[in-house]
């Protein structure tokens, strides 16, 4: 059988990091408490001291820490991003996850020994783009955007020696991540500028008798009945009226879940599987990490006998946004 992929889990806080390590993550990924990472939410992420504690904890148990500096440096403040890179190297993270080619260039020249990963925000969907980054910046791994079919992922893997990481579970961000401006359209801020899609200050959960309306900067995104599972209001997951029909015109508020195709993902040579959700709590990290670990271990013990246990699906469905799971682009007939 092919090598079992690493399980990469999110950590928005020290307790979440410990939950990931204790429940079987091979690596955790996290960010500094500022806009150098794409999950820049109030109260979330790591200051230098918490990061040092986290690295000590993970390394003590033989796991890795990957630091995401995956926003694009803003004009006039490039120094902030350079300083973040220098600090990450000083602190001894196992790899830095970068998206901006200018920052990749800086990191490679300034810190020739540092392991670098290409972030999903870098939007590299072809092996040509990935091989370019390997040639120019000696990247070690690339995280693929959630827009490729399984056959396309395999095609990339066959044509590059860079390790390939894919998303295995979590909320979907569908628009060629790193290039999506929907959030900016609604509120003037987007992941690549302020480090957050649809920042909370623009979000309104409007409770009305018998229903809840969700709004983003005043724009009505969706409306839920009292018992209906709700989702976070991003423009891509809104219900819109299109030619007389009101429906999820771009994407349903669902979560990606690859358990049904895990054997195929391993077979084609994916090196790492990533769990989305740095903004979620330690309880989520515990539940998802434990479930994916169990599935990967079951696969290691015999690919022929692998089947998706109802208990795994139930655990993942519970923590999903909108409580629905999909295979996302992996099995989409169209491209």
């Amino acid at each position, binding site marked *: 059988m092919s090598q079992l992929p690493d399980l990469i889990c999110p950590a*928005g*806080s*020290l*307790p*979440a990091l*410990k*939950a990931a390590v*204790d*429940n079987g993550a091979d690596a955790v990924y996290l960010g500094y408490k500022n806009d150098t990472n794409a999950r820049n*939410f*109030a*109260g*979330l992420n790591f200051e230098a001291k918490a990061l040092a504690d986290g690295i000590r904890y993970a390394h003590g148990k033989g796991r890795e820490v990957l630091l995401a500096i995956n926003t694009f440096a803003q004009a006039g403040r490039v120094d902030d991003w350079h300083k973040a890179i220098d600090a990450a190297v000083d602190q001894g993270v196992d790899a830095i996850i970068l998206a901006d080619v200018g920052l990749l260039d800086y990191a490679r020249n300034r810190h020739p020994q540092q392991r670098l990963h290409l972030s999903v925000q870098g939007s590299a969907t072809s092996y040509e783009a990935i091989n370019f980054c390997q040639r120019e910046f000696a990247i070690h791994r690339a995280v693929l955007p959630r827009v490729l079919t399984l056959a396309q992922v395999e095609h990339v893997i066959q044509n590059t020696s860079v390790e390939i990481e894919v998303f295995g579970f979590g909320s979907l961000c569908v628009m060629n991540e790193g290039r999506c401006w929907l959030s900016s359209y609604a509120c003037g801020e987007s992941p690549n500028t302020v480090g957050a899609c649809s*920042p*909370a*200050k623009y*979000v*309104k*959960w409007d*409770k009305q008798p018998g229903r809840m309306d969700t709004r983003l900067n005043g724009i009505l995104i969706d409306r*839920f009945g*009292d*018992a*209906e*599972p*709700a*989702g*976070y209001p991003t423009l891509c997951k809104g219900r819109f009226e299109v030619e007389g029909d009101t429906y999820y015109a771009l994407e349903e508020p669902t979560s990606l879940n690859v358990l049904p195709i895990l054997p195929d993902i391993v077979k084609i040579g994916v090196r790492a599987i990533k769990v989305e959700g740095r*903004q*979620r*709590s*330690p*309880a*989520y990290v*515990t*539940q998802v990490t*434990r479930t994916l670990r169990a599935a990967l271990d079951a696969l290691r013990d015999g690919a022929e006998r692998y089947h998706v246990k109802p208990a795994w699906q139930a655990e993942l469905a*519970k*923590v*999903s*946004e*909108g*409580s629905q799971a999909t295979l996302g682009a992996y099995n989409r007939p169209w491209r």
Partner: protein
Amino acid sequence: MNTHFTIPKFRLPSFVARLGERLPQWPHALALVAGLNAALKMKLLPASELALLEDKLFRVRVNDTGGEASYTYRNGLFRPVFRPEREPDLAFAANLSAYLQLLARQEDPDTLFFNRELEITGDTELGLVVKNMLDAIEWPRLPLIQTSH
């Protein structure tokens, strides 16, 4: 996951709520505020985020006990507010079991929120600050209620 015991989802019979609504509300408020101030004393809450809570009015409602508590944060202390004179900046409403599951780190607030078991109204960003602050707390291990790690 804690292997010791699991808090099930439950709902207290509605007469409990009717009873609870008639009881004075201050014991809830005092217990909650005492707990928060204890966390303050243990320096479990980060100063940078605490500053964002200054003078905000919070309300916590337990649907199936009928209990309700309002409190605010001012000059370094959480204080109960017995007769709130305005709408809270941030309000939570859920059944007791949901709060217990949250406290034990058994369920994630987003999960409860998206599944409509926890209602959060008011200033969304403030809600996020509070959620992330509580998530980042490293609770000292308690002998009885083990948290998820």
